[in-house]
Structure formats: C-alpha cells, structure tokens
C-alpha cells in the first residue's frame, strides 16, 4: 500500500543514480518522510552498535587455534569503552600487567620476529570480527613467500593504533602490523584499517606509519590490501624505514574509473 503523502513525490528521483548521497528523500510538509527517517536511524544504530560491540577475543583466538596459530591477549591502559573514548592517550599504551606479560614472553622466546601481528578492536570490533581471519589468511601467504618469521597474534582490548609500536618493541619486532576497527561511517560500520611500522618503538608519530584504509566487502578487497601491504613491507625492509617517506607505489590493477558523469546542470539548453 502506498502511504506516501502526495507532497513528497520526488520529481528528481532519477538523480539518485548520480550519487550515494541521501538526495530526493521527498518531504511530508517540509519534514523527512517516515521511511527515510527510519532508514537513517538504522544506519546510525548500526554504526553505534559497532562502536560499542565488545571485542570477542575468545572467538578470535579459537579461530586462530583452528588454523594452528597461537595468540596472546593483552589490554590497553583504558579500562573500559567509556575511558577509551575520552582518553586516547590510555588506548595507546598497554596496562602494566600486559606489558609485563609481553616482556616475559620475549624473554622465554628470544630472537624476536620479522613480523609481529597485532589485532585491536579500535572503534569497530565488528570490522575486526568480520575481516581478521580472511584478510590474515591472505597476508600469511605473503609472509610465507618472503620467509618471514611471524609472532603469535597479539589481541588488544581497547587498543588504539600506537599501542602496536609498544607491542612490537617489547617482542623485538622488525616490523609490526596492526589490524584495527576504523571509526564507523553511517554506511560503513565494519571498515578495517591496516597500520604498519618498521622498527617500531614507543613514541613514534603517524609520520612513521603506513596506513591502508577501508578494507571491507564494499571497499578495498582482502587480496588487494594484502598485495599492497606486502609491497610496502618488502620496500620497508629494503629501505629500512616506513611512513611518509615510503610511498605506496605497488603495481595494482586500479579500479576502472568511469569517465566522470557530465554535469546535467550545465548542459546546453
């Protein structure tokens, strides 16, 4: 049954194919019609739920165990989500128990690793739950090809990007790779970010890291992300650095960019 009020008909509905923006929503009086209103609320709810979804480290570590991979669980200095959201500085460092745990581990397993892999909830545990295993499975093929030694996966609760550098330093990593849930957008609640540091240590700024963003089904594919990251890591080993001085020039098949649509507002009458 069509319950659309007559004044909300959309004579310009066809413009929708030109942009993912929420245009041509119609109106009831001058207000948002019910359907558009509830669509928005659902998108926001999904993004909110992604921010507050608890990190299922038990599930992740049993998935790793099934693949024959060990994992370690650590916690940042942010005690809960409330503190995590207000104190980014706390999410960037380990709590004392976790730091000690990693020191002990390093002592018992001397020699360090070529690659330390860290997985943190960040701002979307949903992204991490969805994409960690399929992405890492791809990535580990590259590690094997390069012959790199790889640490157990370090799972961090309430972690921010920089905590990976502390973990990498404690475990004697040549390189640290972090998988972290990115800030959810209204139509992207499950976007995974990849951050990578060569010779990680506490106190490095963003300028020393490389980032590959937007790994998700509607975004950058696992295979493409792994390919680009492997290129960066090989280059980092060769040049002994990471960050702004290491450009992402991986030979990748770029997406076919359609010729820009002609602007209908400026066509000759």
């Amino acid at each position, binding site marked *: 049954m069509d319950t659309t009020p007559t004044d909300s008909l959309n004579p*310009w509905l066809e*413009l929708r194919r030109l*942009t993912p923006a929420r245009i041509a929503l119609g*109106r009831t009086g001058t207000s948002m019609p019910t359907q558009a209103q509830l669509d928005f609320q659902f998108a926001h709810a999904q*993004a909110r739920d992604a921010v507050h979804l608890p990190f299922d480290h038990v599930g992740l570590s049993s998935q790793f165990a099934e693949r024959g991979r060990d994992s370690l669980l650590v916690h940042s200095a942010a005690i809960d989500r409330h503190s995590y959201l207000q104190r980014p500085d706390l999410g960037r460092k380990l709590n004392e128990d976790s730091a000690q745990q990693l020191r002990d581990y390093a002592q018992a397993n001397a020699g360090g690793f070529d690659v330390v892999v860290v997985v943190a909830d960040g701002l979307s545990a949903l992204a991490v739950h969805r994409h960690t295993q399929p992405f890492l499975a791809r990535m580990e093929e590259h590690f094997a090809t390069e012959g790199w030694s790889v640490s157990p996966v370090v799972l961090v609760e309430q972690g921010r990007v920089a905590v990976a550098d502390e973990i990498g330093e404690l475990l004697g990593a040549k390189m640290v790779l972090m998988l972290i849930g990115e800030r959810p957008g*209204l139509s992207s609640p499950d976007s995974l970010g990849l951050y990578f540091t060569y010779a990680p240590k506490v106190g490095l700024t963003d300028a020393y890291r490389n980032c590959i963003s937007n790994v998700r089904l509607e975004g950058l594919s696992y295979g493409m992300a792994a390919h680009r990251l492997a290129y960066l890591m090989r280059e980092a080993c060769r040049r002994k650095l990471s960050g702004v001085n290491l450009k992402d020039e991986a030979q990748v098949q770029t997406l076919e960019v359609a010729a820009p649509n002609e602007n209908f*507002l*400026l066509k000759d009458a």
Partner: protein
Amino acid sequence: MATFSHAVGTQTYRFDSLKDVMAKASPARSGDYLAGVAALNDGERVAAQMALANIPLSYFLQEVLIAYESDEVTRLIIDSHDLIAFAPVSHLTVGGFRDWLLSDAADEHSLRALAPGLTPEMVAAVSKIMRVQDLILVAQKIRVVTRFRGTMGLRGRLSTRLQPNHPTDDPAGIAASILDGLLYGNGDAMIGINPATDSIASICDLLNMLDAIIQRYEIPTQSCVLTHVTTSIEAINRGVPLDLVFQSIAGTEAANASFGINLNVLQEGYEAGLSLNRGTLGNNLMYFETGQGSALSANAHFGVDQQTCETRAYAVARHFKPFLVNTVVGFIGPEYLYNGKQIIRAGLEDHFCGKLLGVPMGCDICYTNHAEADQDDMDNLLTLLGVAGINFIMGIPGSDDIMLNYQTTSFHDALYARKTLGLKPAPEFEQWLSKVGIFTQNDGRIEFGQQLPPAFRQALAHLGGR
C-alpha cells in the same frame, strides 16, 4: 602572575593564575580533562566560577593567558583592543558584566559599539558563568550583518551553506546534491564543497563549475571550495573565479602553524580575494572554520582551556571582516566533547562568544558515530541556535556527509527551523526562490511551487537521454 582564592563556607579554594581560574571555571567537558586543566570536582568548578565572577574585566588587559612575546594571536588581541569602546564596561567585574549583558542597557546598538572593546578572554570568562538561557538571550540581541552577493545575519533570517560533498568529487554527483538542496530552499549562505582531492587542478575545476552554476541560474549566493588558503591564492593567480576564501583557524599561533598558516598568510588570502572584486553587495569574503579542541589536538593550547582557545580564534577571524565563521562543533570527537550535552553547550558558547566579539557566527551542528549523541541532540541545538539568532547552519542531503563521514543538519532540518521559528532565507535568495518557483514563504508558512521550476525541469530532461 596573580594567584586567586575563593572561600566558600569553611573551604578555601586556590588557583594559580587567571588561566587556572578560567580552566577550572569551565563547565565540564572531556577535552579539558584530557588536557589535565579541568576542575577536580563540581565544588571546585563552582568556586572557580565565583572567583572568576569577582575578577575585574580590566584585569584581563594586565594578565595575558599566552605570552605576548611568543604568540601573535595575543599580540593581535592586545594591540587591537579599543579602550574607548571598552569604557562602558571597564569598571565591571566578570560577574557584573554578566548582569549588564542581561540588562536592558545591553541592546543591539550598545553591544555592537562594545565589541571592539572586548577581548576573547573577557568574553570566554563571562560565558563560563552563564547558563544556556543567558547565552541565548544575549546572543539574540546581537546582529552581525555581512554582505557579498547576499546579505547574512539580518533579524528574522536563517541561512544555510549547501554542502554537496562527494567521495570522488564527481561533478554530476555534486550537481545532484546541489539541485536537491536548492529545491529545498537551501544554499543562500554559500554552496561550499569540501573537496576529496586537494590537487590545484581539481580545486580549480570545482570552482569553475560552481561559478557556472551560480551564473547560469542567477543564484544570489557565493561559491566556496574548502581548501588551504594558499591553494585559493594559487587558484586566484590562475584567474579562476573564486568568491569566498576559506581557512581553518585556531586561537594560538602554534595551533595556526600546525594548519600551515599565520596572520600574514591570511592577510595575503584576504587581499587576493578582494582583488577579484566579485561581491556585488559587499566585500566580506573570508570564510573561517573553527572548533573547540583544535589547539589541544595540535598540542598548542599552553594549558588554556579549549573554550577560551576557541574564543581567541574569533579574534583572528574578526580581523579579516569575514563573511561567515563556522564552529564545527561536534566533528572533533568525544575526547573533546563527549556527548550531546557537551556539544550543545559548546555550540551555544561559541555562537555567543563570536557574536559578542562582532563575528558573523554559524554552526555546523554535528556529531560523529563514536560520540554519545544522536539526531535528537542535533534537533535541540538547532532549535536553541535558531532562537539565539544564528546566521547560518549547514544543509546536506539527509544529514549524511558521505565524504567526511559525519552527520550534520539536513535540508529538511533548515526548513523545520525556518517554519517553527518564522525565519526566512537571506532576502536576495528569498526573492530568487519565489521568482524561480521553488517556494514562497510567509512567516512560518512555506508554499512550494506546484511543479518543478522550468529551468531545472530542462536540466533534468538531459538525464537518461530524454
């Protein structure tokens, strides 16, 4: 540097400096906790407010919060202070100033005359002892009117920046959002794009496109592409038609340096804009964006609370006679403004402080998905700022910015505010809306045309090969 103390009952509270009193008197917000400058508890906060209320306004000319020698924003504030304009309130304390502002002695005329006599620190101080209703009542007495191709800030008007962002700057995608906004009566403050790509070539393409649309449809508005001021200067040097010169600014020299600007660079941008002489009604052409927390996030706050840093940015703004200034209040995230309550208070403070200093304030009423805020909070802030007489807000399709990934006010939201508060678009744009046949407005009543306006019907006919 003086120390301050205040006794309440048996307890005496002590404060190290004016900066310390100001920070501890600030209504609670996450950014001040993050910076470690906030009051330890509610009692200390109110004691600081009491101490602050007793400080004479004239004392703010003696003790600066950030050193004169090392900060050009402090130098601008002190060197441009107008003692004659200050005279009517120079004998008052901060508390007395609040009483005066709320009294009938403070009206549109006296407040306009007073603005050059006020420093950002005086204004920030008084805002800290004001409730939400005080911030609204005083702000709505003030009008800051500016002109370029349209007139902003007149009483009874509420303008919108049409923000047609697109993740890849696709011209047709941008045009689709522009038309959507125009057909909902938005876009009188400007059509302003946040570009996804910052190359000079694509910035110039966008500027040329906006100019062509504004000219073809004879829209009494202004264009803006929000790129670094030096890029705008480069575009002007290349002969590209540019209306408003944009820049993000902050309240300390060091924070501005983190944006790659200083007062000289802003002056160059301002003069480059003036050289084009594109304004038909006036030549206010700078468009600034600000936001509480920007100085702290650049580690350039020098122990000054975030609301006072923000107010100092308005001193930078007013020096360049801006067309509009936009506090992007909820964009920065919950580590600076945690929830709807903090965002709402901050938006009203920024609007009040800017207006009192004579700055044409607008607000990007917005939030991110990791803040404890939602559409209801935005409705509250929009309604309150509408009552307070804000110059402009954002207008975006369905509140969803698909490029910047945050939520701001929609085209529909602007119509809600105009309808409930009886506010109209800028007069030139109101006339255009009626002439083109989009809608006419009488007080709160908005009557849409029965059909799509012919000019736009023709444009739509170009789609799909019809």
